């Protein structure tokens, strides 16, 4: 069987960590907004952390999907462009 070597560069890892950190920050802000909006106890900053993580991961996945679609469009555009340049 042929080996498939996938190389993940340091730059890519850094980018993903940055995106996930932003997603978690976004989820934290959403929780803060919800606490103020629904007049809930501030302790929910801690007690709702599992929801915050879930919302953060969900946001990351949605962004991931959008990025994948963008990459796909980019790839298709490149393919369309290539024959005309030959």
């Amino acid at each position, binding site marked *: 069987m042929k080996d498939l070597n996938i190389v993940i560069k340091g730059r890519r890892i850094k980018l993903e960590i940055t995106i996930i950190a932003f997603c978690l920050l976004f989820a934290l802000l959403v929780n803060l907004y*919800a606490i103020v909006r629904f007049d809930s106890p501030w302790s929910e900053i801690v007690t709702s952390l599992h929801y915050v993580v879930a919302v953060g991961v969900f946001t990351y996945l949605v962004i991931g999907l959008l990025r994948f679609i963008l990459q796909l469009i980019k790839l298709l555009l490149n393919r369309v462009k290539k024959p005309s340049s030959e």
Partner: protein
Amino acid sequence: MKNNADSEFRSEIVKNRRNFLKKLAVFAGSSGVLASMPWWSPLRAEPPGSSALDRVRLGIIGVGSRGRKLMLHLMETPGVEVAAVCDDYEPHYNRALDLTDGKAKAFKDYRKLLEMNDLDGVVIATPLFEHARMCIDSLDAGKHVFCEKSLAYDFAECANVVKAYRKSGKVFQIGYQRLYSIPFLKAKGYVDSGTIGKITQIRAYWHRNNDWRRSIPRPELEKKINWRLYRKYSCGLMTELASHHLQVVNWVLNAHPISVVGYGSINHWKDGRELYDSVNVVYKYPEGVNVIYDSMISNRRYGFEIQIMGSEGTIEGEKGKIYSEHPPTPPAIVQLINELERDILDSVPIGGPSWAPDLELDYKGKLLAPGWSGEETAIQLTAFAAAIRESRPIPGMMKHAYDGGVAALMGQFAMEQGREITWPQVEGLQI
């Protein structure tokens, strides 16, 4: 003939049941349980040993569908021997004998079974009209008695069973399984502690969608096999189903009904039956509490349930759930997500219905006894055997049998006679 796999399976069950009984003994020994459910007291005893002295020898009178189930349970109960079976219907008689590998003595007349001196007690699972006669004869013959619900066919018979029981000093157990259900025990605890506030109403129902018939090999056996449908032998839905919930009501409210009114009809299964296929009754209890009960066998959408409603909450006994009138609000972030979900997915109403605030609360409630797997019948039969071993009557049991049985009969009589039926006062009756 039984194969080895069968006997290995049975011994595994007995082993598991022995472990289960050990846990049960610890649970039953707690003061909280004994205070509210004194009929659990026989279960405090350690599981029986394997000596002949520890063995309780029982006879089963009536081995039809329910009797057979009880028999199978008893055969798996440590320290119990099914020593005799009795049924006057040949196929049931033969089936029961086969189940015991021919080890049990078999009879067609229960009076012959009662003549067995080495029999400790009997389990009666016959049609309603035979309960009183068989209970009284068994108690008079010095046997301990387990009788399937409901207690008897009319008020006088119920009272006569109580009198025979008092005279005998023997153990009496009635087939109300909810008395041995952990969710119902918890429910009773929540009611007594005031967690659901003042009980203002109880609503119970039992719905099925079948004709309630059993197939008959010959037409002349119709009334023998389908006795539930005929007035001479039964009081139908009230004694066969409602009786269970009425017992729970009496227990929860610590009272028996004052009176009852109701209507019954045969509105679907018009096949020559004499007993109602649809019943609707309202019982009046002390302190202005009404109990609304209905049962039908032409629709099963809502199944069965008993809803104990208080000013602070509701208990659904059959689902084993408790609901607060003030459900806890979810965390803010969940509320926000729910709101977004509603905004995106819900259709836009032109004008909301004015009754929207009165729609059922969308709250899933809490389980009364998480992990409960429903071992009521096993626990109940174990308690019966343990009480026989101790030779001590089960506290509070006859009162449940009498109050539940009489309440069920009151409902039937109210519908038949088209008038309010009040609780029968029987002079000098000590329950």
